[in-house]
């Protein structure tokens, strides 16, 4: 196009858009393509898609209203927890699985089944959307989900390691729980026996047995802990050398978590023991019944403070111990020695805890940094498709919608004016409007009606028959129907067939078509005719492969020229 002609066309666009918006004029001139220069495409697409009202003075209020609605709607539908899940998906790649989501267990407890199922569906929808967004137009740097995120690979690896660790530890935790339950049951049985035997007057001997049992239990627990720690260590060793360090860190942090739990249990037990022993001392000094009663009251108060029932039971047992210990002073001394040792251990544990807390803070900071790294457009495309599915529950999300949205989003995101910052709401409404017109192609129920996609493909077949009978006959002889290759062309408005610049040029025409989207049929037929020579020379599989993977060498101008030719021929008839 010569510079003179281009300037004249630009003037036309200026006239059509800026002075008085004239939709008919806009359609007429943009049918032949909107120039890159002048930044007219975003605004014209918005006009053609009925997002901007025809009258210029209404634009501002309409835009403000729509954008406000969008942000409100988004806030309502996309909750922070969903974004957290999104991060998980982003880093766990294809291996995200709802059942393994960290807070699923928590949700199961807090929600009723209906709510839970809804949450499950929402997350699965988001993942479905994410998987397709991640593989949208990966040839373009603009759309790449991971390449322009430094440190993505590292994070992904560590995420996967974390997950596999979680899996192995969760099975161990289950085993632990079982063991603990068994122990508790044993202790309870023994206690019950004690109560009965007290009445019979055989208290003392039995109580000594309990003490022995308990000591054994504690020793067993410690042994178990050590064993488990060893297990986790061996695990980390088996994993690959490269990530050894990372894994170890994580493995340690999980071990520490476990230890934490154990420590808390230990500490509470020890505290109880301490208290009981103090009481013992006072007992030995005074030995009056009244004081005993007071102490019992104090103990009861302490019991209330410690809410857990199991621990209460332990306190009671320890009270029993005291009585025995009064009789056997030697035992007391031994226990005191043990306590001293335990206190030393406690101090060590406290130091460890402090270290863990520091690590936690550091890891949190890391997480925050990572969320910033997720490219905005990846998140936006996912959110927009998710919102569309929520806005149109009858249609939901269908694979391929990502390609249509990507085209619109790309145009609005590369707008050179101030409007660029409203890419989200603008894309949402324009996508919504375009989908309104082609939603028939996305509904299974309409497939076989006169409005459905099968009818559109039959129309292509009939048009080809009318325009180029030889080619039609040959395709029939090969038993190739448009249905075998046109489905994607029609339903996605060719967005998987062409490179972005070609597609945008094609869409200029498609959107300017007053009988939208009749022109899709003509373009499809034109595409078949443009590769006629190659089809005639090939057999079934080569011909079909050619049409399925449409050659990139055919220029969009050639196809459009042919399509316009077809439409004028048909009009004459």
């Amino acid at each position, binding site marked *: 196009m010569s510079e003179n002609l281009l300037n004249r066309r630009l003037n036309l666009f200026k006239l059509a858009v800026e002075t008085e918006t004239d939709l008919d004029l806009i359609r007429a001139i943009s049918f032949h393509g909107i120039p890159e220069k002048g930044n007219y495409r975003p605004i014209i697409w918005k006009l053609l898609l009925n997002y901007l009202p025809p009258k210029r003075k209404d634009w501002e209020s309409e835009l403000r209203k729509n954008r406000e609605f969008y942000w409100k709607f988004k806030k309502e539908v996309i909750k922070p927890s969903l974004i957290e899940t999104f991060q998980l998906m982003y880093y766990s790649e294809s291996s995200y*699985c709802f059942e393994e989501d960290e807070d699923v267990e928590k949700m199961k407890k807090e929600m009723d089944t209906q709510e839970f199922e809804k949450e499950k569906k929402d997350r699965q929808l988001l993942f479905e959307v994410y998987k397709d967004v991640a*593989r949208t137009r990966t040839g373009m740097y603009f759309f790449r989900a991971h390449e322009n995120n430094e440190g993505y690979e590292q994070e992904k690896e560590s995420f996967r390691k974390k997950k596999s660790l979680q899996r192995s530890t969760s099975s161990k935790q289950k085993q632990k729980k079982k063991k603990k339950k068994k122990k508790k049951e044993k202790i309870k049985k023994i206690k019950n026996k004690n109560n009965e035997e007290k009445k019979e007057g055989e208290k003392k001997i039995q109580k000594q047995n309990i003490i022995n049992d308990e000591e054994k239990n504690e020793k067993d627990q410690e042994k178990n802990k050590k064993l488990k720690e060893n297990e986790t260590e061996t695990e980390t060793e088996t994993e690959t050398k490269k990530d050894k360090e990372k894994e170890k860190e994580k493995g340690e942090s999980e071990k520490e978590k476990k230890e934490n739990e154990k420590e808390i249990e230990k500490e509470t037990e020890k505290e109880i023991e301490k208290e009981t022993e103090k009481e013992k001392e006072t007992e030995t000094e005074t030995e009056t019944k009244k004081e005993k009663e007071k102490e019992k009251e104090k103990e009861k108060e302490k019991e209330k403070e410690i809410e857990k029932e199991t621990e209460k039971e332990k306190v009671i047992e320890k009270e029993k111990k005291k009585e025995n210990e009064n009789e056997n002073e030697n035992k007391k001394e031994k226990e005191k020695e043990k306590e001293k040792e335990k206190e030393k251990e406690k101090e060590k544990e406290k130091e460890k805890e402090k270290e863990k807390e520091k690590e936690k803070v550091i890891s949190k900071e890391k997480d925050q940094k990572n969320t910033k790294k997720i490219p905005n457009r990846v998140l936006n495309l996912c959110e927009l498709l998710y919102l569309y599915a929520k806005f149109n529950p009858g249609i939901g999300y269908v694979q391929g919608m990502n390609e249509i949205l990507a085209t619109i989003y790309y145009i609005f995101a590369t707008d050179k004016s101030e409007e660029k910052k409203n890419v989200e709401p603008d894309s949402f409404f324009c996508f919504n409007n375009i989908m309104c017109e082609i939603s028939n192609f996305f509904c299974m129920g309409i497939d076989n009606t006169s409005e459905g996609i099968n009818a559109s493909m039959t129309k292509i077949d009939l048009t080809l028959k009318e325009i180029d009978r030889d080619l039609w006959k040959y395709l029939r002889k090969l038993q190739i129907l448009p249905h075998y290759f046109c489905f994607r062309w029609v339903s996605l408005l060719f967005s998987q067939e062409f490179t972005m610049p070609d597609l945008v040029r094609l869409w200029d025409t498609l959107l300017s078509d007053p009988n939208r989207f009749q022109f899709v049929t003509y373009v499809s037929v034109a595409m078949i005719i443009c590769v006629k020579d190659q089809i005639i020379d090939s057999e*079934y599989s080569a011909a*079909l492969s050619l049409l399925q993977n449409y050659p990139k060498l055919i220029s969009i101008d050639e196809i459009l020229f042919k399509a316009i030719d077809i439409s004028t021929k048909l009009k004459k008839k």
Partner: protein
Amino acid sequence: MENFKICFMGDQSVGKTSIINRFIYDDFNINSQSTVGVDFLSKTIFVENESVRLHLWDTAGQERFRCLIPSYVRNSSLVVIVFDITNKTSFKSIEFWMDTVQNERGDDVIVFLVGNKTDLEDERQVSLEKLEKEANKNGFLYLETSAKTGHNVKQLFRKIGISILKQNKKRKELIKPELDENTSLMNISLNIDPNKLKQKEESGCC
């Protein structure tokens, strides 16, 4: 050379397209576009001293596209049902896909069950034993593959070639060629080949 249609089906993103791409181009692209409608690819392989042309129909897994699948199953010599070994749900869906096949073909088709993504062994949710059990229950062939590493993909197509040839020989012995020139378009049957062979002679291609 004879042509055989093979229909790939299974839930979305289990790796149908990736298995086919590994086979055809010996390449793996984690970002392969989602299949909309149906894709078609073909390749010639040599099995037991015979060359066989495989027409691979790669169907879309998402629910919306399921209505398209029966017409492709109808004309296939062999059906490959793919699931993802790291995804229990995709394994459970096998039943649905089997019903689709049986509604169209009864037991008159070879079925292959393929568990894909063996490269993600540490995330496995479906054991080989389960797959074996499911396959034996219905008399299907089965295999585990990884389109990413290429594990077992060649073997899969070799086995496909072998079993198709075997079935074809059986059929040729059973059915004497009856030439029926008025085959309707939507009733193309490539596995009973007399018609097809005749057409080829006429058109002079291949």
